[in-house]
C-alpha cells in the first residue's frame, strides 16, 4: 500500500515501514516474554508460600551443575547464531543453531532425568514444588528446542532474507530467555 | 452471521477456488453436536432401549460390575436361582472408595444423626451364602457379616470377619477390584445394590441399581 500511495522515494518509505515492522515485532516479543516470565515468578513464589526454604536433599548437584553449564554454553551459541543471521549468513546460523540444539537438547534431557528419577513423595507437605518448577523449565525448553528446530529447517529450505531475518533472531532469543530463566531457577533451587 | 452478504466483496487473487460441500459440512457438524447432546443427556435412555430390544438376559458365569462416580455399570441385572456366578466388581473411580452392598427391605438409619442418613439395607443378600474370593486388587476392607467366605488370595488385613461391622460389603480403593464366586441362593425377588460410603452421598447421587432374581 505504501508503494502505491507514496510520492517520495519508495526506498526510504519501505525502509521506514520495515523499521516500524521490526520495532513492532521486537516489542511484541518483549511483551510475550514478559507474559511468559509470569509463570516463573509464580513458581518461585509458590515455593516460598508452601515450603519456605525447604528443598528435599535428593536434588543431584552434579547433574544440575553440568546441565547448567551446557545450557549456558548453548546460550552463547544462540547469541552467536543471532550475530550470524544479522550478517545474513544463513549457513553460519544453521551451524550455530545445530550446536545450540545439541547442547540444549542434552541439557533439557538432563533436566528431564532429574525430573524422572527423583524420588517423589506424594504425601509431602511441601507440595514437591521444585518438581513442577523443573518441569516448567523442561516444557519451556522443549518448546524452545522446537522453535529452534523450525528455524533451522526454515533456513535450510528458504534461506535468510532481510525480511525473514527477524524470525530467526527471535527464535534464538527465545532460547536465550529459556536459558536465563533456567539459570535463575538453578540458583533458586540448587543454591539458595 | 452475515456471510452471504459479503461473498461478492471478496476478491482474492488465488487461481484456485476452495470448495467444500455445504452438505457434508452441515451433516458433519450437526451430527457431532447431536452426538454430544445425546451423550450428555440421553445416553442412559438409549442404553435402556437397546437392552430392552435384546429381551430379558439372565446373567450367569462371569459378570462384571464397574463402579464410577457415582453410578454402577450396569445398574440393573437379572439372575436366576441356582446359577453359578462370578461377580467381578471393579472400581474405575480415580479418587473415590466404593463398595457394593446388596439388600432389600428398607434402610437402617443412623440414630445419632439428625438427618435422614441411611447406612445400609435392612436385609443382607449375603446372609448364609457361601462365597469364594477368586482374586482381589486394592481392596480396602471386606466386611463378611454372615456370609461364609473362603478366600483364595491370602487373607490380608482387609478381611473383617468380626460381627457387628454391618452388612457384607467389599470396599474398593480407587482402581481396585474383587472377584466373588458363588451360586445364586434361593432368595428370589427384587434386590437392590448401592454404595453407602461417605455417609450415603454416593447412594443419594445415584450409585445404586437393582437385581431381579428369578426363581429356579
Amino acid at each position, binding site marked *: 500500500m505504501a508503494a502505491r500511495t507514496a510520492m517520495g522515494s519508495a526506498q526510504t518509505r519501505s525502509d521506514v515501514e520495515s523499521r516500524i515492522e521490526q520495532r513492532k515485532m521486537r516489542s*511484541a516479543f518483549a511483551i510475550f516474554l514478559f507474559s511468559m516470565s509470569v509463570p516463573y515468578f509464580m*513458581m518461585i513464589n509458590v515455593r516460598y508460600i508452601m515450603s519456605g526454604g525447604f528443598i528435599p536433599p535428593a536434588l543431584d548437584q552434579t547433574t544440575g551443575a553440568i546441565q547448567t553449564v551446557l545450557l549456558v554454553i548453548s546460550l552463547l551459541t544462540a547469541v552467536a547464531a543471532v550475530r550470524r543471521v544479522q550478517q545474513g549468513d544463513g549457513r553460519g546460523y544453521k551451524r550455530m543453531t545445530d550446536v545450540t540444539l545439541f547442547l540444549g537438547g542434552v541439557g533439557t534431557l538432563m533436566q528431564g532425568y532429574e525430573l524422572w528419577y527423583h524420588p517423589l513423595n506424594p504425601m509431602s507437605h511441601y507440595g*514437591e514444588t521444585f*518438581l513442577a518448577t523443573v518441569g516448567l523449565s523442561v516444557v519451556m525448553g522443549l518448546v524452545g528446542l522446537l522453535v529452534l528446530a523450525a528455524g533451522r529447517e526454515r533456513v535450510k529450505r528458504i534461506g535468510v532474507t532481510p525480511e525473514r531475518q527477524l524470525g530467526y533472531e527471535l527464535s534464538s532469543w527465545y532460547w536465550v530467555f529459556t536459558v536465563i530463566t533456567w539459570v535463575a531457577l538453578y540458583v533458586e533451587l540448587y543454591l539458595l | 452471521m*452475515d456471510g452471504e452478504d459479503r461473498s461478492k466483496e471478496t476478491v482474492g487473487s488465488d487461481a484456485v477456488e476452495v470448495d*467444500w460441500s455445504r452438505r457434508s459440512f452441515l451433516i458433519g457438524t450437526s451430527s457431532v453436536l447431536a452426538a454430544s447432546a445425546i451423550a450428555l443427556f440421553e445416553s442412559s435412555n438409549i442404553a435402556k432401549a437397546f437392552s430392552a430390544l435384546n429381551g430379558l438376559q439372565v446373567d450367569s458365569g462371569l459378570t462384571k460390575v464397574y463402579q464410577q462416580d457415582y453410578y454402577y455399570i450396569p445398574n440393573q441385572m437379572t439372575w436366576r436361582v441356582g446359577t453359578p456366578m462370578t461377580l467381578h466388581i471393579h472400581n474405575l473411580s480415580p479418587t473415590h472408595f466404593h463398595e457394593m452392598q446388596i439388600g432389600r427391605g428398607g434402610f437402617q438409619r443412623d440414630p445419632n444423626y439428625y438427618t435422614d442418613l441411611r447406612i445400609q439395607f435392612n436385609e443382607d443378600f449375603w446372609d448364609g451364602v457361601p462365597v469364594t474370593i477368586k482374586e482381589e486388587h486394592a481392596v480396602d476392607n471386606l466386611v463378611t457379616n454372615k456370609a461364609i467366605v473362603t478366600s483364595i488370595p491370602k487373607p490380608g488385613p482387609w478381611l473383617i470377619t468380626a460381627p457387628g461391622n454391618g452388612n457384607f460389603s467389599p470396599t474398593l480403593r480407587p482402581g481396585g477390584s474383587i472377584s466373588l464366586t458363588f451360586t445364586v441362593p434361593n432368595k428370589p425377588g427384587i434386590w437392590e445394590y448401592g454404595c453407602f460410603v461417605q455417609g450415603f452421598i454416593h447412594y443419594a*447421587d445415584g450409585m445404586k441399581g437393582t437385581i431381579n432374581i428369578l426363581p429356579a
Partner: protein
Amino acid sequence: MSVARIGDAPLPLRKKQIMPPVIRGLLWAGIGFLVVNCLVAYLLDPQYGDPFITQPSVVFGWIAATAGWLLGIGGLENVLLPSFGITVTYPEATGWRRYFAYSTNHKVIGIQYLVSSTGGFFIAGLAAMLMRIQLMGDHMWFFPYAGQYIETVGIHGTIMMFSVGTVALVGGLGNYLIPMMIGSNSSAFPRMSALSVWLVPAGIMTVILSPLLGEWTTGWRGYEPLAQNDPNGILFYYLGVLALTLSSLMVSLNLTTTILFKRAKGLTWNRLPMYAWGILAVSLLNIIWLPEIEITFILAVLDRVVPLPFFTAVGSPITYLELFWLFGHPEVYIIVVPAFAIWMEIMPVMARKPLFAREWGIIGLIFVMMLSGFVWAHHMFTNMRLTEMLPFSFFTEMISIPTGFAYMVVIGTLWRSRFRMTVPSLFVLMSMFNFLIGGMTGVFLADPVINLQLHDTFFVVAHFHFTIIGGMVFTWLAAMYYWLPKFSGRMYNSKMGVLGAIWVFIGFDGAFSLMFIQGLRGMNRWVPVYPPYLQGINIVISIFAFILGLGFLFNLIHIAWAMKSGKKVQENPWQSKTLEWQTTSPPAEESFAAAPVVTGSFYDYEDDDESFSIPTTPGPVSM
C-alpha cells in the same frame, strides 16, 4: 476466486474440492484423542484392569485432540508447515465458508469470536434456566441428584466467565473494531488470531462435555481440596479453561501490539479512542494474570495425574484459593473495563457533545486496572484474620473511585447535551443503572462485617450478576446494536429494539433484585434445596429468569434478522467521528483504501451539524 471481468470469456474456475475444515478438524481431533488416549492408557501407563480412560490418558488425549483440531482447521498449512519453511498453497475460502475456516481477516475473526461467544452464552444460559427450574421447588425434583445441579452451576459459571465475559468484548468486538478504530487494515498478528479463535469452541465443548468423565462439584472456581476429591470431570474443567484463557491471552498479545504499532498517522496517544484504551488496559491485565491462572490450573492437573501433593489435603489448599482469586478478581475487571470504554465510545456520539473529562476516563480505566491486583482476598474473608482483611477491604472500597470516573465522564457528557435516545443509548443507560446497583452492593460486601454475614448467600450472587450482566452483557447488547450498521450495512427495527431492551431489563432487574432480598433472608448458594419459607420468592425469581432468557433470545433473533434483512442505511448512520465509521458499511476486504491521517479529536462534536457526515477530522488523505 478468479476475477472474471465483464467482456472476458468466463474463465473456467479451477475448483479444489476439500473436506470442510471444521470436519477435518473434528476428525483429526477424534483421531488424535483415540490414538494418544489408547497409547497412554494401554501402553505407557497401564493401570490395573485396563480401563479405557485414566487420568493421564485423558489429559494427553485432550492435548492431542486440541492440537489435531487446530491443525485440521488450517493450522497445518498456514502455521506449522511455513514455520518449518515448507510452503503450501492453501487458498482462503470465500463467502459464508470463510467464517468456518482459518481466516486472517480481522473482521472475519471478530465475527467468529462473536458467534462462538454467543453460542457459549446461550448454552450457559440454558444451564441457568435448568438451575432455575430446579430452584422452583424446595426439594430435589427436577434434577435427580444434587451433584448434577452443582455441576450445572459449574458449567454455567465457567462458560459464562471464560467464553463470554472475557471473550465477547475483547476477542470479538476488539478484533473486529480495534484495527479499524486506529486506522489499520489488519491486526498485528493476524495468523495468531486466526488460530486462537478456534480454541474458543474447543474450550466450550470441553467444559460442556466434562460430565462424560464424571461430575465435578466445585463450581467455576474449582476450589481445593474439594476438586481433588472430585471425579475426572474436573480435569475437563481445567483443560477447557486452559484453552479459553490461552485464546484470550493470544488475543491480548495481538491487540496490544496492534494498538502500539499499527496506529494511523496522526493518531497520537492523546487522540487514541476510548475503546482502544479500554482494550489496552484489559490486555495488560490478561497478559499478567492469564499465565498465572493457567499455571495454577496446570498445577492442579499435575496434582491429579502425577500425583503431586500441591493443593491436596496434605498440601496447601489455601494456596490454590489465593492463586485463583489473584487472577479471579482482575478477571472481573477484564470483563467490565471494555464495557466502560464502550459507554464512553457510544455516549458522546449519541449526545452530540465532546467527551467530558476524557483524560479522567482514561485515568479511571488505568487505575481500575492497577488496583484490581490488590483486592483478591476479599473473596476469602472467611479464611483470614481481621488485621489481614483490613487492607483488602480498604482497596476494594477504593476501587469504586476510579470506577466512578467512568460514570462521571458519561454523565458529564450527557449534561446539557442534544441527547438522542436510541436503542444503543438506552442499553448503555440500563447498563449504567444496573452496574451502579452491582457496584454499590460491592462496597457493602467489601466491609468484613457484612461480608462474613452474607458470605455464600444469594446476596453475593445478585451482586456479581448485577456487575457482570448489568455491566458487560447489557453493554454488549448496546455495542451489537450500535455497530450493527457497521457489521452489515443494515439497521435494526427501533420499535423491536426498544421492546428487546425493556424486556431484558424487566427480566433482569426482576430476577436479580429479588435475589438480594432472598440472600438477606438466608438463601444459600450452591445448594439445590432450601427451607420451605423461601419457595415463594424462588418461584417469582424463576419466572423473571425465564422472561430474561426469552428476552436474550428475542434480541439474538432480532439482531440476526436485522443483519440479514434489516433496512439498509447510509454508511455512518450515527454521524460518528471515530475512524471505523469512515469506511464503507459493511467494510470492504481492506477497510481503508488509503491509510487515513488523523488531524483532530474523535470526540469533538462542537462543530456545526452539517459537518458530521463529512469526516473532517480523520479520513483518507491523498499523499
